[in-house]
């Protein structure tokens, strides 16, 4: 079984994101970038499938600038077998990503695509679903458990009020939620081994996709600061405030 894992290069989760002075977006200069944490979970899941003898090859694909190669290298150091970098500079919207990924899928014929449910930069939560639709494949989103069987995969999903398990006929698309697994470290010997693993370079044009954004960003602003709270003296005062000031009861 071949597994394709798309990985996105995003601002590191520890970085305090700042809006650019001219409001055209967020500051990316001199900012630490890392693999989207949900994609790390996807890579980990693919590696575990390989360790269980279920997956035979793991391909990490990233769509982004040349430096996205570092993100692929991280996936290779964790245990992916080879990489594909589709070089695109500037913003790539989820639909363009999904179209490019469809091109990669058509070329590689994986049995399973595992990717993060969303990226922590724009929080779109669209790529996996769009990819499944474009491919006409079944999808299991927000997975907290993935169990491939014979020609199918059982995906336990985190939904409001509990867990739902769906059985998907493969090939299928799975998007990962936070509790699916805890991604491993890349050990130093594996970091060194990853240097020798191949990364193919492609462009969006290779897949016949025009990645130009369809949306225009009008402006980007910092979220307003949280207002100071008040301390109430009694339950009566609280009820009074909820009734008259907050108007929620």
């Amino acid at each position, binding site marked *: 079984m071949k597994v394709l894992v798309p990985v996105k290069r995003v601002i590191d989760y520890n970085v305090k994101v700042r809006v650019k002075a001219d409001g055209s977006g967020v500051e990316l200069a001199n900012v630490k970038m890392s693999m989207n944490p949900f994609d790390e979970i996807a890579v980990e899941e693919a590696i575990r499938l390989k360790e269980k003898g279920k997956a035979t090859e793991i391909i990490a694909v990233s769509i982004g600038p040349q430096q996205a190669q570092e993100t692929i290298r991280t996936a290779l150091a964790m245990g992916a077998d080879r990489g594909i970098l589709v070089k695109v500079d500037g913003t790539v919207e989820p639909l363009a990503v999904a179209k490019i990924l469809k091109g990669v899928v058509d070329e590689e014929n994986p049995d399973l695509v595992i990717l993060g449910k969303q990226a922590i930069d724009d929080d779109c939560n669209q790529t996996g679903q769009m990819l499944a639709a474009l491919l006409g494949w079944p999808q299991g989103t927000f997975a907290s458990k993935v169990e491939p069987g014979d020609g199918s995969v059982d995906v336990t999903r985190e939904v409001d009020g509990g867990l739902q398990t769906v059985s998907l006929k493969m090939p299928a698309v799975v998007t990962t939620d936070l509790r699916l697994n805890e991604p491993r470290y890349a*050990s130093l010997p594996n*970091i060194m081994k990853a240097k020798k693993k191949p990364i193919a370079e492609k462009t969006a044009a290779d897949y016949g996709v025009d990645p130009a954004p369809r949306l225009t960003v009008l402006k980007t602003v910092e979220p307003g600061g949280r207002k100071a709270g008040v301390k109430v003296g009694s339950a009566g005062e609280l009820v009074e405030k909820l009734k008259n000031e907050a108007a929620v009861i």
Partner: protein
Amino acid sequence: MTALAQADAESGTSRSPYFEPEHEMLREQIRRFVEDEVKPHGLAWEEQGFTPREILLRMGELGFLGIRYPAEYGGSELDTLATVVLAEELGRSTFSGFAITALVHTDMASVHIAHAGSQAQKDAHMADIVAGRKICAVAVTEPGAGSDVKGIRTRARRDGDAYVLDGSKIYITNGVLADLYCVAAKTGGEGERPSRSVSMFLVEKGTPGLRVGRALDKHGWRSSDTAELFFENCRVPAANLLGEEGHGFYAIMRNFQNERTVIGAMAMGEAQAAIDLTLDWLTSRQAFGEPLWAKGAIRQRMAMLQSKVEAGRQLVYHAAWLDARGADATREVSMVKAYCGDLVNEVMAACLQFHGGLGFMRESTIERMARDARVQSIGGGATEVMLEEVAKRMGR
């Protein structure tokens, strides 16, 4: 700005010409390891007075203990710059007692076996050293001799196919918990030149005649076990001689270069962590209607310290780079040890001061870090000794 520099800046990498992508990836992994597996437990280790074996085994699993060692023993065959990454990141943990436990093992003690050990010695121990199954200590310092290595009194007397060691060692990091001790002792007769009279021996824990004295009660580095060792008629096989008889002084001097680079890197990691956590405090603590960070005297002082730490860090990188390409870096390494050892104390003093009353409390991180930093201008070659090494190379 060149396209490459632009790309580096945008990717937020070290912006240093010395580092390769694998160094950056290693740094990232160690930083995550420190955040997730060291910091939550550090206080407990400080309390108990040592760093547990499990964490060293975990570091072994991740390849952090064999950075420069041969692949046949599980190592990664990287260079001094990768070692510097390890030392700097462990220093950033704010638990230098933990950091020194690992770094003495990797870069101050086991190097004696890796550099001078016979094939049989290496085959017997190196794989376990890289995996963290056997922990090493190096025993040179004695009650009567520290930086003055030729002044040691512990003797090793040849007796048939064995050496018999007599003497004592003090301030030995990992001294309580180590499995392997690399011990300096005097060999050779009365007339021997002092520099040719020191030899190194491998002494395994449990060897009759080796007694681990008390665990020493220290000002800082409290999560590191430090011991006094006694050798009383301690018989080790002649095959346990590390390198040639009489060559110990040179081995110690050679390994000091690495040790001092590592301490410099560790000190700069500590200093940066202190600046970072002090900055958090300064921007949130209000005084006279504004954050402390708005006070010119404080901002200026912190900015100068950050500048010095950046300079110190770059000097460490430069010395490591010289060493990695096989150049003699004694001058630069001595500068690193003198400058970084003093600077980390300057940084801690200011950062503690700016914490106000909290800095004087045992519960604050900066209080521990200031205590931990104190030894950095002493251990591995005191600042005064290091400056002599620099002065000797100033050409007058």
